[in-house]
């Protein structure tokens, strides 16, 4: 088990290397230049040349590439090209916000989506089902940033229940700041989870082993929650794993709307400032997330389904 996890984590390396290579060249293909971004519109060509030299941007591309790869392998992210801050610190500040937002959104997604999905599946085509499906459709149709702004208008500006800006300081304050962004993303996630759970459970309820359970005299409630739901969870888990990655991406707009610190804000800013080092490091972290989320999904699936063996 531990060996398996370690091995999977080692598999990160080729993925990350690929991501790095892609990002490295993608960034350099983009027009614009970190020097202009950093020095501003008044910068003279001379100053720009100097700046590029200092950052090693005047070296041949392959030299930059190998230097960069070598640096990355030693987990040395270097400093921001834009403002010289150590990238490690920048990521360290941003990550907790992004992770907590993604986790909170996922929790909301599970807590609302799973039971709702189960209930709508059980009462298929009933009133509850109609309501649930409508909820899912609407939840899925609202652009999250627009929804976020509406939440801000109502719950922050008018009712003043929740703060409007930033990520908060200290545990409770951070929690307070987390609520609205988490709802924004969480509701979409809930809608997604609900749909997934519903269809997966409907599929499972058709299976013969559910009939077997009924045939043993098991009460309907237990048929659903013990025999059916566990089987239904396997596709749900996989689907949510993939969706969690989408959610991580969705944090970008939500962070902007709620002026929240986080990886998204960091990366978008990084791209617009052509802060190569920052964007590269951020994407490495993101690639790492992807691998970890995939790993967790696989572990969870294996825990749910004995047929899945971890090799």
């Amino acid at each position, binding site marked *: 088990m531990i060996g398996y996890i370690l091995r999977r984590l080692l598999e990160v390396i080729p*993925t990350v290397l*690929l*991501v790095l290579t*892609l990002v490295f060249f*993608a*960034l350099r*293909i*983009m*027009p*614009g230049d970190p020097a202009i971004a950093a020095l501003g519109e008044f910068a003279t060509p001379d100053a720009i040349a100097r700046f590029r030299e200092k950052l090693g941007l005047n070296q041949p591309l392959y030299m930059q590439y190998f230097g960069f790869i070598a640096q990355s392998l030693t987990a040395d992210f270097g400093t921001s090209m834009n403002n010289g801050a150590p990238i490690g610190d920048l990521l360290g500040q941003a990550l907790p916000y992004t992770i907590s937002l993604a986790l909170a959104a996922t929790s909301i997604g599970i807590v609302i989506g799973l039971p709702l999905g189960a209930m709508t599946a059980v009462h298929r*085509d009933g009133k509850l*089902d*109609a309501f649930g*499906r409508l909820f899912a*459709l*609407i939840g*899925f*149709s*609202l*652009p*999250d*940033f*627009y929804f976020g*702004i509406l939440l801000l*208008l109502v719950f922050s*500006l008018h009712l003043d229940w929740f703060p409007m800006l930033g990520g908060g300081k200290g545990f409770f304050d951070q929690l307070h700041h987390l609520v609205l962004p988490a709802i924004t993303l969480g509701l979409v996630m809930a809608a997604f989870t609900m749909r997934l759970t519903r*269809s997966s459970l409907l599929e499972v309820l*058709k299976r013969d082993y559910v009939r077997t359970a009924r045939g043993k005299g098991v009460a309907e409630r237990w048929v659903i929650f013990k025999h059916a739901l566990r089987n239904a969870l396997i596709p749900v888990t996989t689907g949510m794993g*993939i969706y969690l*990655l*989408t959610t*991580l*991406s*969705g944090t*970008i*707009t939500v962070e*902007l709307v709620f002026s929240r610190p986080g990886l*998204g804000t960091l*990366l*978008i800013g990084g*791209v*617009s400032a052509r802060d190569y080092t920052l964007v590269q490091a951020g*994407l490495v972290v*993101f*690639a790492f997330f*992807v*691998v970890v989320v995939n790993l967790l999904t696989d572990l969870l699936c294996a825990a749910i389904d004995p047929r899945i063996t971890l090799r």
Partner: protein
Amino acid sequence: MNVPINKLTMIGTGLSALLILLAAFSPWLAPLDPLDQSFIAANQGPTAEHWFGTDSFGRDVLSRVLFGGRISLAIGILAPVLSALAGVWAGMLAGYLGGWTDRVLSRASDLLMSFPTLLLGVMIAAALGPSFQSAVIAIAVALFPRFVRLSRSATQVVRREPFIDASIAAGRGHLSIMLHHVLPNIAGPLVVALSLWIATAIRLEAALSFLGLGAQPPTPSWGNMIRDGMSDLVGDPWPAAFAGAAITLAVLAFNMVGDALRDLLDPETAA
């Protein structure tokens, strides 16, 4: 078929068709020129002259919503379709041939999958300039790995069906088999996915516009209308609200079509 599905299907299909038609015929339907500025009449709520009000440049919101549908729906439909064209083939090749082809293509699509969609958009927009094309490319690239995955796994199932072997035995070549047998048989789930991802793409277009990356002014798109409208959401909520409603409606409609298609293609529910 039971009643709720039927109703939803009809509503969804009707609504999708209506929206597409409205967008397609917007030059004839729009009451006013969507680009016409009039600062005297700026930031109005709904009136008899401007049913949906005006935006901060005094442009007619109804006309802009109608015209905006062209861009939003075009991106929303074009991007997934392009993505499907490429992704389905890649997925079929991977699923059918297996081995190295599969490994390379799967790795590549995993790689794309591990890029945050919006960041991808930001990078593409930075490289090509934010525009209609960039948005289409960004969304298409973001959806590409999903089509690869889906068609790959569907192909793997179909590949094992005896009728494929029968076709090989009849003497057909592999590419021809993919075209004649695999593609028609995986088309069902793909069409469903396509309709769902059209909805996703419309939302993504909005999100990209929100980051300033979608269709560019003065061309209205629902996404950039929301974006522009959001700077003055309290003073003049109309452009954003109507564009937001249009997006919600469109996504809802396409989702309903997707749901209905899925039910329709499931032999248990369709029959």
